[in-house]
């Protein structure tokens, strides 16, 4: 029965959480309060692990909650249940898009939302920039400009920028990620 309940809770989460992985956190908090399957502290750990492992954060959290609650079957049921509503909705939207893609009004809508989408992705990138390159707590403590940047990260960013822009190399993003992880470990970022 716990699997059915798990399915129900995560189906609801997938249906009502709009705006990506971290938007599911309030829903998962609610599951914790109502069912007592896991504590708030476990939830904090789950978010940390989900951000520090490959895969979209939302799926990672669903799998984690499912596993903690009901083992491997729980992990599978929770992830599938969370994904199911959006799969259905997107398939309907995709059919609609295909039918009306050439309509001038639909074209006009895309003309407007494409640049907005770039703006939102750039804002997400700016959020990563603050965590990856800056050291805001250190700067607040000392007020010294030298403490504002994480210098090792800044150097790595510069190097990656040069190497990844060499058209001839065509380095795969996966290789760049693996290399950066290794550099992070070796130079103790």
């Amino acid at each position, binding site marked *: 029965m716990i699997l059915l309940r798990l399915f129900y809770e995560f189906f609801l989460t*997938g249906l*009502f*959480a*709009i*705006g*990506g*992985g*971290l938007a599911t956190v309030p829903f998962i908090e609610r599951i914790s309060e109502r069912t007592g399957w896991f504590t708030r502290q476990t939830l904090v750990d789950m978010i940390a*692990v989900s951000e*520090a*492992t*490959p*895969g*979209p954060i*939302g*799926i*990672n959290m669903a*799998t984690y909650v499912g*596993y903690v609650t009901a083992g491997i079957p729980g*992990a599978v049921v929770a*992830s599938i249940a969370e*994904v199911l509503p*959006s*799969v259905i909705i*997107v*398939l309907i*939207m*995709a059919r609609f898009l*295909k039918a009306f893609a050439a309509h*001038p009004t639909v074209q006009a809508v*895309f*003309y*407007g*939302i*494409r*640049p*907005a*989408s*770039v*703006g*939102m*992705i750039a*804002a997400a990138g700016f959020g*990563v920039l603050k*965590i990856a390159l800056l050291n805001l707590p250190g700067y607040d403590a000392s007020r010294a400009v030298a403490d504002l940047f*994480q210098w090792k*990260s800044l150097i*790595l960013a510069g190097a*990656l*920028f040069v190497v*990844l*822009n060499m058209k001839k190399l065509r380095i795969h*993003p996966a290789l*760049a*990620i693996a290399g*950066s992880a290794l550099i*992070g*470990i070796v130079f*103790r*970022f």
Partner: protein
Amino acid sequence: MNTHLDLFLTFCKIGGLTFGGGYSMLPMLQREVVESREWTTEAEIMDYYAISQCLPGLIAVNVAVFAGSKVKGPAGGICAALGVVFPSMVVITAIAAFLTNFAELPAVQSAFAGIRVCVLVLICQAINKLRKSSVVDWKTAALCAAVFLLSILTGVSPIVYVVAAALAGVLIQWRAARGRLDS
């Protein structure tokens, strides 16, 4: 290779190499789905992101389903969705079972500090490519800049921006069409 299997495996690869939210999947999508396999265009990926922001569910999964269904209909969408989800299931189950203090390990924290820098540079490159197909005149440039600034300065839901941008797009094109009729 069977296209359904190819969709599943490609999105497995993309899901397994996404660190962070759905936006960090973008560089991998461009390389695998747009450049290597030519399943969609840059502009289509942009549309998928914009619509996915407004739909329920995870952005990464929504974008995968859009791309998969463009290639092979509903079955293709489902293959892509399963592909994005699969690596998470394996990795998280393994960590939950054996490494409960995974996120606190110093080596893991160092590795992720490095990965974050890489994700940042990759996103900058991805945005630069997308800019060409979406920011086509001064009006779209203004829209893009406005949404960027409002997103970092306020906590308004992305849905508001997408709906407002859609209305702005219709209005701009409608005025342009009327201008053509008048002259």
